């Protein structure tokens, strides 16, 4: 799961020990990035 720090804009990977926190700047607001795969949507 990859996130992006909202303050320093760096990519952040979370593990189960570190809690929700950017390891570079300590900011606690992380943004979830859109995945890279193609998403199929049916139009109804």
């Amino acid at each position, binding site marked *: 799961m990859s996130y992006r720090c909202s303050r320093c804009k760096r990519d952040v990977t979370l593990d189960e020990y570190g809690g929700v926190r950017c390891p570079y700047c300590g900011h606690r607001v992380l943004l979830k990035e*859109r995945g890279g795969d*193609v*998403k*199929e*949507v*049916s*139009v*109804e």
Partner: protein
Amino acid sequence: MSEADFDVQYIERDDRSARVLIRGLSPAFANGIRRAMIADVPTFSIDTVRFVENSSVMFDEMLGLRLGLVPLTTPIDDFEIGDEVTLALDVAGPGTAYSGDLVSSEPLVEPADKNVPLIELKEGQRVELEADAVLDTGKEHAKHQGGVSVGYRHLQRVTVEGDLGEFDEEETRILRGVIETEDGEIVPTEAFDHDLSERYPGKEVSVEDVPGAFVFHVETDGSVDVEELIVRAIGTIEERADELRTTIAV
């Protein structure tokens, strides 16, 4: 089968809209044609969208729904119901993505209008997608309707009964549709501002429906032209009647 005595007369005619007077129809048949024009003439419409990238402010699903409503030109003879055509869109901001930016893999099937706004993109936003358009009928989904705003009215015959009495007040008499005068002239009511007292000042007139004569107003979304829409709609009625006949005969 007896030869029905139909008479067809175009009152207005354009690529996308027309007014047609048809005589010799029963009300049930007229309504059948109207319904067939809405629900039974197939058109292409985007059905599945594969998003490679969407960094716009709009959700994939919302953009998908908008894409579904873009009218696509449909040469019905060359395709069968269920056939698919792929279109692609790749636009980057800043700017607005229009239906004209859709690139079709099949030159016969492309957006009927090039100026339908799909989404507004800001600097750095981008949309890249691939969409499958499928041929289907309006009864499956309203986005497949070829005919929009299809309806009919009775043709109305206006007869001059005599002069207005000396002390009678001239009142406006609003009428919408198409009238037939006593000498057989067909006049849309727009010609006299929908007001019979404009056309027949100082006269007393009576208005009655002409039996079996219907004025259809037909408008298409651009996927097929008006004449084809009408002919196809009648064709589907014929097909179903044939099907019923063979089923009964067996």
